């Protein structure tokens, strides 16, 4: 092995021995550092995974949803509207949607009634979301009676429960046939809640929305990308709120870590003096101490990040869930798809590992550039 490699090996050996010699101090630093990374990474991973999940769900949504407005409020789509817009150039598909909210006083929760586009539900039956099934103790083959807003009681058989994988989007969902929907809500015939439009060319979406606004001035076209943006900002906002709440704790941790990292003990100063006096170069000492700080911060970063990953993707982030997910009676149970944003990881790395290394290196450099003759006088 070349002398250069041997020298690096000796430096690493000495660094590891030095870490082991101050076990308590270094373990303390490692724990504090890892906790800091854990808290930040958990919030980042969770919010990013939620954003990603919302994105995935919305990818299947129609490009444009058209709503009718009366006095600025959402109103029903009257008959004839679908026919007026279905011939518009660039519009691939148009269909009227039927959906509405229902408050169930039994569990004090809101349900979303929806008629699937293919109207595949048999009259007298329901397909329900998993959270609703849990809450009301329902399973395929059982039945449920719901009192409509008009006061009439309707009984439905449960045909199926939607799969767990879709729970984030379907926790409170009831899929119902068109006939049952209209009867249950006393919904006027040929009226729809809104209109979904599919557009083949994504570049045309805005143009078509403009045309729709001109053609139907009393309506409001809502673009999918706008909804995606809204969701993203909701999760960004929640992440921000959480980071703000955590900031005091983070700051306390940061000060502790900085103090621990930047303060050289008398023993360490003495050690640096001895190494210089016996022929170690300033560069060797800085390198050795750099490796010491780098090892601690890298291990802590890895431990903190892996712990955050497990916390978010295997345990569903129990520590941050209430803040980041939002509140609901029918709380969706779901396992987030593990998604990691490289830029976020790099940012976290940059704002944790680099300041730590700087905090360790500055006092080392100061100690290492002092004259080695000091050791003769101690």
């Amino acid at each position, binding site marked *: *092995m*070349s*002398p*250069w*490699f*041997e*020298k690096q*090996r*000796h*430096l690493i*050996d*000495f660094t590891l*021995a030095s870490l082991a*010699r*101050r076990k308590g101090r270094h373990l303390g630093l490692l724990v504090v550092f890892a906790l800091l990374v854990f808290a930040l990474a958990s919030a980042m991973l969770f919010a990013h995974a939620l954003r990603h999940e919302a994105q995935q769900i919305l990818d299947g949504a129609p490009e444009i949803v058209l709503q009718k407005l009366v006095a600025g409020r959402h109103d029903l789509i009257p008959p004839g509207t679908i026919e007026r817009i279905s011939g518009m150039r660039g519009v691939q598909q148009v269909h009227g949607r039927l959906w509405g909210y229902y408050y169930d006083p039994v569990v004090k929760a809101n349900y979303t009634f929806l008629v699937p586009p293919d109207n595949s539900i048999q009259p007298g039956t329901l397909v329900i979301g998993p959270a609703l099934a849990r809450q009301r103790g329902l399973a395929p083959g059982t039945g449920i009676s719901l009192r409509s807003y008009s006061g009439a009681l309707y009984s439905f058989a449960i045909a199926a429960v939607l799969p767990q994988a879709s729970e984030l989007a379907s926790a409170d969902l009831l899929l119902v046939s068109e006939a049952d929907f209209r009867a249950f809500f006393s919904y006027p015939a040929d009226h729809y809640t809104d209109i979904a439009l599919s557009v083949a060319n994504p570049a045309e979406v805005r143009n078509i929305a403009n045309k729709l606004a001109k053609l139907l001035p009393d309506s409001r076209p809502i673009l999918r990308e706008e909804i995606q943006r809204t969701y993203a900002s909701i999760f960004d906002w929640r992440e921000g709120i959480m980071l703000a709440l955590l900031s005091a704790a983070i700051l306390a941790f940061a000060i502790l870590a900085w103090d621990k990292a930047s303060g050289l003990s008398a*023993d360490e100063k*003495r*050690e640096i*003096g*001895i*190494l*210089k*006096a*016996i*022929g*170690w*170069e*300033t*560069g*060797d000492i800085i390198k050795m101490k750099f490796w010491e700080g780098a090892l601690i911060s890298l291990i802590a970063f890895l431990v903190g990040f892996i712990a955050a990953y497990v916390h978010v993707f295997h345990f569903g982030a129990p520590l941050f869930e209430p803040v980041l997910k939002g509140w609901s009676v029918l709380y969706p149970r779901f396992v987030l798809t593990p998604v990691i944003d490289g830029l976020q990881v790099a940012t976290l790395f940059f704002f944790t590992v680099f300041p730590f290394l700087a905090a360790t290196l500055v006092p080392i450099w100061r100690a290492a550039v002092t*004259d*080695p*003759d000091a*050791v*003769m*006088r*101690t």
Partner: protein
Amino acid sequence: MLATLDYHRSRLASGVTVARSASRPSGLGAARRPDCTVGASMIELRDVKKAFNQGQHNEYWALSGITLNLEAKRVTALRGPSGSGKTTLLTLIGCLARPTSGRVSLHGRDISGLPERFLTEIRRQTFGFVFQQFNLIRGMSALENVMLPAFPTGRAHRELVERADALLERLRLTHRRDARAEWLSGGEQQRVAIARALINDPEVLIADEPTANLDTALAKEFMAILEGFGAEGRTVILTSHDPLVVESAAVHRVIDMRDGLLVEQ
């Protein structure tokens, strides 16, 4: 003959009277450095001054103009009371510090103005240090402490262990090789410090008050080791005011100092 001439010339130049001079047996062993003849001037100091906190209210001149030649393969002792400047002089000789003014030459090469990196290189290759407080690194074994100065040289690990083991054996410390520095007695710590000073096989061994922290028995033990170095022709420069050291037969030359100056005798 040439060596003797050099020696006398240096004495004349420095104006230093040597208390006990080259008349003592030098205990020459096999020559370690082919270019170093006994008594040849190895280290030269010309009007060396050293100030601390220069330009500040607490400015202090530790050395006020030292001119001195130190010979190779000799044991030289710097003697003087506390504050006489002997440790400061030792740090300048050992390249641990640079003089404020004046010149320090090693084998005729002026080293007083060299940048720190080169001084470190010279220090590592040429000098081995035994500090007054021994300055071993706590938490590390005796063997690891001995190997430390050789780490920056990039020598193979096995070679270092062999060399360190040989030194510990020579200093009768094999049984303590794995003991941590803080578990060693004062005498053992000093012997480990000596082994550490020798790991890079330096031309010059520098010892600052080597017996200051030892009882009489251990001090005598150190003197025995010192005699061994003298016998094998190693250059040793030490500071001491311990009569056991400065009056020992192992010391070839004693230089008296007071108030940052050499004392004329």
